[in-house]
């Protein structure tokens, strides 16, 4: 009896996990398919692009050799299947411009970007939680100030915020380097640039749910038990306020990667974003496709993690 009762939830959980992984694999496959066919929409001859663009004088023999090397003379379906096969083995092809394998190139850049993103996410959470908690306390004025700050923060373009921070802290005050040097000091401005707009968005959502939580009957019950205002916030409200913000993590990841493209460029910081932008500028197709695929994988992993985090933070979801 007890055995049966225990097995059923495990089987159910296994089914849920399998369904999730299957869904993720499907999305990845479609992402690869979409990029493969999207790239074929690029006008011009890919062999020419490989040999330095349409301007370069290339012999027909060289073109033919390149076509054979890259399999461009094969039927589309064969190329597609070959591409899928390579992707499964982790082969992202060779860069047109850098004459280098894409996978090791991008993986080498990944660490810096991830560090930036993780730090920025942490700082954004701290800023958002702090502002939301503070502005839920002090009545209408604090509410208006908090809400206004969040709207402005959320409207700040990364490139402008970065410029303003550089002018303020590097040019005028001379405290921090204007470009991202190795070490902690070089990380401060890039992290702030990424964190502040994100904090604006997260804060708007957190304050909303914080207020809902503070008005709910269980907070009245807690107060009636003698809980202090600080206790009401820390024991009860913050957790409720965090739930919707946790569900935003997948989106936040995307926003941070987009921001990294800009921030790494401005602060001359090596990373995935900057590599991606350079590749788009010189139309280095394999690098762009590789970067897009890596980000897609990261995004999908992030949504899976988000799901898990939500289930941990909100026991009500576990029953489902």
């Amino acid at each position: 009896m007890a055995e049966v009762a225990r097995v059923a939830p495990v089987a159910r959980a296994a089914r849920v996990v399998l369904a999730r992984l299957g869904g993720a694999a499907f999305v990845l496959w479609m992402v690869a398919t979409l990029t493969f066919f999207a790239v074929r929409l690029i006008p011009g001859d890919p062999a020419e692009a490989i040999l330095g663009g349409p301007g370069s004088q290339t012999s027909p023999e060289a073109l033919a050799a390149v076509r054979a090397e890259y399999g461009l003379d094969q039927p589309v379906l064969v190329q597609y299947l070959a591409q899928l096969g390579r992707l499964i083995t982790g082969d992202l092809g060779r860069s047109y411009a850098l004459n280098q394998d894409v996978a090791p190139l991008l993986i080498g850049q990944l660490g810096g970007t991830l560090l930036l993103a993780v730090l920025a996410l942490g700082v954004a959470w701290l800023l958002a939680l702090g502002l939301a908690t503070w502005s839920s306390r002090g009545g209408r004025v604090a509410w208006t100030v908090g809400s206004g700050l969040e709207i402005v923060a959320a409207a700040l373009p990364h490139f402008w915020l970065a410029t303003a921070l550089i002018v303020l802290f590097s040019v005028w005050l001379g405290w921090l380097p204007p470009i991202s040097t190795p070490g902690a000091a070089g990380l401060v401005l890039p992290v702030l640039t990424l964190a502040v707009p994100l904090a604006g968005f997260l804060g708007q959502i957190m304050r909303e749910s914080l207020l809902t939580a503070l008005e709910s009957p269980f907070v009245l019950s807690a107060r009636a038990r003698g809980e202090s205002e600080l206790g009401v916030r820390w024991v009860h409200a913050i957790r409720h306020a965090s739930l919707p913000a946790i569900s935003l993590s997948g989106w936040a990841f995307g926003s941070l990667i987009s921001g990294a493209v800009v921030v790494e460029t401005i602060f001359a910081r090596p990373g995935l974003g900057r590599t991606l932008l350079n590749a788009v500028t010189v139309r280095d197709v394999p690098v762009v496709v590789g970067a897009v695929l890596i980000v897609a994988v990261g995004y999908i992993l992030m949504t899976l993690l988000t799901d898990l985090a939500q289930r941990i933070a909100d026991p009500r979801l576990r029953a489902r």
Partner: protein
Amino acid sequence: MSDETDVGVPGAASVTGAGEGPGGVAAGVAPAVRVRNLVVGFGPKDGADPVLNGVSFEVAPGECLAIVGESGSGKSVTARSLLGLAGDNAWVRADELSLAGSDVQNLSEAQWRRRRGRDVGLVVQDALVSLDPLRPVGREIADSLRLHTRLDAAARHTRVLEALERVGLPDAGNAMRKRSGELSGGQRQRALIAAAIALDPPLLIADEPTTALDVTVQAQILDLLATLKRAGTGILLISHDLAVVGRIADRIAVLCDGRIVEQGPADEVLTRPRHPVTRTMIAAIPVDKPRGLRLNPRAAEPVLPSLSYQSGVAPGSSPDDCDRDTSPTTVLEAIGLVKRFTRPDGSEQLAVDSVSFRLERGTTLGIVGESGSGKTTSARLALALTRPDAGEVRVLGQAFSAVPEKERRALRPHLGAVYQDALSSFDPRLSVEQVLRDAVAGGARRTGRVGASAGAADRLRVLGLLEAVGLPQGLLGRRPLSLSGGQRQRVSIARALASGPQILICDEPVSSLDVTVQAQVLDLLDELQRNLGLSLLFISHDLGVIQHVSDQVAVMLDGRIVETGATARVFAAPEHPYTQALLGAVPRIGF
């Protein structure tokens, strides 16, 4: 807070025991709470219209005082003022306000915090949301111990177990690790009470503690409160329902518009009410009131001075139709209805299981059951809003559920529906007039009228409908959102009548209304039924309401009809044990 009383001296109440209220507090024992001339308002201090205006009462240890009033009477504000939680922009003034014998006026927030949970506990309506849904209930209960005692975790654990056992929660060790969402309604209400009494406060304030509960669970919770009372806790029970409080209250205070209009021993207030407000409330209780007896004696004028809205309705459905009442025929019939739902975890649930019933012309069939019994699904099946997995619904002898919606539409005008949540059944963009015009316009189209004359006719019929349900024309331009609950339900009834139906399906039509408003709506439905010859399928969880409105009654349990028969017979001599249990749990005055 107040500038009219002495600076609070803890423990030294400014009045003596002389001249006490009717409670008869034993000399020498401090009352759990004593309030004299409590005035509470919101907004600018001493601004117009305080919410509470001169309320006085006291509760002795081991005594239960019930404060009864309808929504907006100031009940909940009273409860919160006793905890210093009336709100940020509220001002509280009283000649005396003391808990456990010591004055609590002019307490600082920190001083209040030391008293909340220790001198007074609070239990509010819905434990699902009154216990933090993210935390185990054991932690919630342990909170007051953590805040007010120096007990270590192990000692707190023991005390939590004790508290849970006191409130009669089975398997306390297991239950304390669960969250409110994982417990049943009755269990979590017990857990909430355990959290309020963990420190054994002399006063327990219970604000509508049983309102969201099924009647059998309600009876258990009331028994639990009575047990606590006998053990010496003073209970301030706040409720809208006189019959409920009659079960455990020693004294009753009736609150109306921020004033106590009547206060006295429970049986005196219930059996010999002196104030008209109390009399109206008692008259409005439908339990044991025969069918057709008005519940609201104040408004005894006849409804329906004109039936002008009926004009233009297809012949055969008019009340003047001479063959209408000649022979009782079945207007609505359910035959072996089955409806399964798939739970989120993939298992199947039989929401409705071989349900059959017949609604005879001009009569009311009441369907009664507790939450989850399949009542509402039955109503949706009857309205063909849900497709049955087996069985069928026939209307006026014709196939209804078994035909495509397109064919069904011809029969729809014969069926009107009134829902529990009237507000959400109105398109939020539309005004009352637009809602009713939409409803009558369908009828006009069927009779082939077009153009301006149809518009004028529609307007007349809308006015007729409004009159029929007793609403003033001034409401036409308003949005349902800005109406009161009773007004919304009247608009909803008017809409249901617009097509001149023979059958009205009412799903919990009065469940969210105050007792006196409920009485008015029930009276209205009764009158409409008699004047228009309507047949009613009336669904409710409230046995009192069902007993009052029904000719026939069907009792549902777990998707099945377990007992059916003439109302008088079922209520006088219930056969099924479940019906007997339900009837035993119904709160009634003077049981």
